[in-house]
């Protein structure tokens, strides 16, 4: 039976990871994810989890050790944020190329510089094209649920890819709130023991991490791309099973009050929850506005995005990262590109908000929705906007 417990979400993430019985955890402290490995080391020290906690000397080594452990056939977990993710960056695309189902929780934080420890999505957006499955949680319950799901998806024989689960630093990691925890029996029933496709052991000799020459590299990349795209089938299956067992629904793109909506906001991460409050207010005022919440970032849910915008006149895509000198926020450019070939498509605007921990209160979502309603009639006013920036 699930138990309702109040807890800091970072600790809840650690507790849930422990329910998934990882064999090896390797992590390095960095704000705001630190409480996750800290608490996992507590759980191991208390004897509640039979795992090796490798207290590595860098994030590069954290992900490297996870590669080694996963390559040896162990279930491996790590967590990081921001600069830590960048320090891992060399190893990140290798993990997916080697088809090692490592699970990583990222407590999203702005990239330096200037140094800033607070939330935005510039860290994960910098690691977009690396072949990992990438998902966002919007509240503590989703962190708990998606942590368990992540292991199952990653380790599925048709997937065998690493998963990063993103939760907003501080806005989620440091918040105490109630969550329903599945029992150990429920997790064990949902998540089978990890059976590696291959492992480095003399009983079954394999070479992992080989060299690929130009004669084969296109095919290798195509194979990597196809398996990531195909993983959506498994992701949907796992979410369906989760819904059947636990009654909570997960979709690649979720909608909130979109019936009859002419204006949409599209948000990612925890701000999608705050945006709901704004939608309620605007609906009360009679504005036909709804909200899309993007949960699955990679593989990108093209079909779901196309279906979700039918009949919509204008949509504001909210990004928590800047693509400097680029086409607008990274989520925006993906969404716009998904809709380019549609005969009828909404006007889309890019609103970049909440950088480096800048608070995004309900009123900001209302103003953005109002702007979207305006451009539905007049057309876009600029390529993209850093919303609410002083001096403009």
């Amino acid at each position, binding site marked *: 039976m699930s138990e309702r417990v109040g807890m800091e979400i970072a600790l809840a993430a650690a507790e849930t990871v422990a329910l998934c019985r990882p*064999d090896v955890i390797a992590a390095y402290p960095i704000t705001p994810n630190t409480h996750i490995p800290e608490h996992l080391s507590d759980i191991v020290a208390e004897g509640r989890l039979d795992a090796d906690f490798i207290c590595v000397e860098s994030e590069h080594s954290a992900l*490297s050790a996870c590669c080694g452990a996963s390559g*040896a056939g162990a279930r491996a977990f790590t967590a990081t944020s921001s600069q830590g993710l960048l320090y891992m960056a*060399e190893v990140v695309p*290798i993990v997916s190329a080697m088809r090692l189902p490592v699970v990583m929780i990222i407590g999203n934080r702005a990239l330096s510089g200037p140094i800033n420890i607070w939330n935005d999505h510039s860290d994960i957006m910098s690691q977009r094209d690396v072949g990992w499955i990438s998902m966002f949680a919007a509240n503590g319950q989703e962190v708990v649920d998606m942590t368990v799901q992540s292991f199952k998806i990653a380790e599925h024989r048709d997937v065998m890819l690493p998963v990063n689960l993103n939760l907003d630093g501080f806005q989620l990691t440091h918040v105490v709130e109630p969550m329903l925890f599945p029992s150990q029996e429920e997790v064990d029933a949902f998540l089978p023991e990890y059976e590696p496709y291959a492992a480095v*052991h003399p009983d079954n000799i394999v070479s992992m991490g080989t060299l690929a020459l130009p004669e084969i590299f296109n095919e290798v990349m195509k194979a990597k791309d196809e398996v990531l795209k195909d993983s959506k089938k498994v992701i949907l299956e796992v979410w369906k099973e989760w819904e059947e067992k636990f009654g909570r629904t997960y979709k690649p793109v979720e909608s909130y009050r979109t019936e009859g909506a002419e204006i949409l906001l599209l948000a990612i991460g925890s701000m999608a929850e705050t945006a709901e409050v704004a939608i309620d207010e605007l609906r009360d005022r009679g504005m036909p506005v709804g909200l899309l919440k993007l949960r699955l970032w990679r593989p990108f849910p093209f079909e779901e995005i196309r279906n979700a915008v039918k009949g919509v006149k204008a949509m504001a895509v909210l990004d928590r990262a800047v693509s400097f000198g680029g086409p607008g926020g990274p989520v925006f450019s993906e969404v716009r590109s998904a809709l380019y070939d549609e005969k009828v498509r909404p006007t889309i605007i890019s609103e970049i908000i909440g950088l480096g921990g800048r608070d995004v209160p309900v009123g900001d979502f209302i103003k953005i929705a109002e702007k979207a309603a305006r451009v539905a009639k007049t057309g876009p006013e600029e390529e993209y906007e850093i919303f609410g920036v002083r001096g403009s």
Partner: protein
Amino acid sequence: MNIVENFDLYAPRLVDKEEHFSAGHRACQGCGEALAIRLMCKALGKDTVIVNATGCMEVVSTMYPTTAWNLPWIHVAFPNSASVGAGVEAGLKVLRRKGKIADRDVKTVAIGGDGGTFDIGLQALSGAMERRHDLLYVCFDNEAYMNTGIQRSGATPFGASTTTAPAGADSTGKSEWKKNLAEIIAAHNVPYVATACHSYPFDFMNKVKKARKIKGPSFIHCMSVCPTGWRTASEDTIKMGRLAVETGVFPLYEIENGKYTMNIKPDRLRPMEDYLKLQGRFRHLTPADIEVIQTRVNLEYNKLLNKVENLQSWEDLS
């Protein structure tokens, strides 16, 4: 004629006949590193997992869809064979504890070149040694970044001309001395640290066997002659390694629990000129340059002898 140390007739009887590192690898003609790896694998035997840093040996041995390895082998990147090794070791340990794999001792051995060990991988190596993983790390030192075309590393000796520390009108090649890596690792209180060279195959293999038995971290620094990078004749690979030892520029010694032992102690050191003159990378050196090198080699050798004579095992100190 003293061809090899402790010369044993019928050498093949003394070693594992299995070729765990198979022919067909694409190392250069006369590659000392390929030889050293072949010998290391014979000493390790089959219950071994090899964790390879990016470098010549990884590139020449595992061109997909083939592999030269008859041992389980994993490569991830350049700077992290020690941390990948740490993960492999931890993974195998936990899986064995949980009864998910066979209950027998499988040694994790991380390997890297001098670039991957002295320079870019030093942090990961230091971390792995400090954390006391049951891990043997073997550095195959050919004294430059050979895989990328002979660039200077922290292991490149003073005076060597490399493609990033070239000799020229205003330069005598590398202007800094080689980093003393064995001492750095020994300072981590690693119970077994040794230097070795493929030119002394039985000494090297014995050291590998000794290190393999250590429950905890161990480290071997294996000088590996690179005919391409050193600009020596391919048939001289063994001779060059022997000269490195006989001149004292690369003495073979062990540090066991803090106690130093000199394994090969020539009666008289040969002059450095004998070693330097055979190598294209040192061709530009003047007699004065060689004198500077000779002085330094003498000093370092004497420092080592001093340790050999005076330092005791920790066990005798406690």
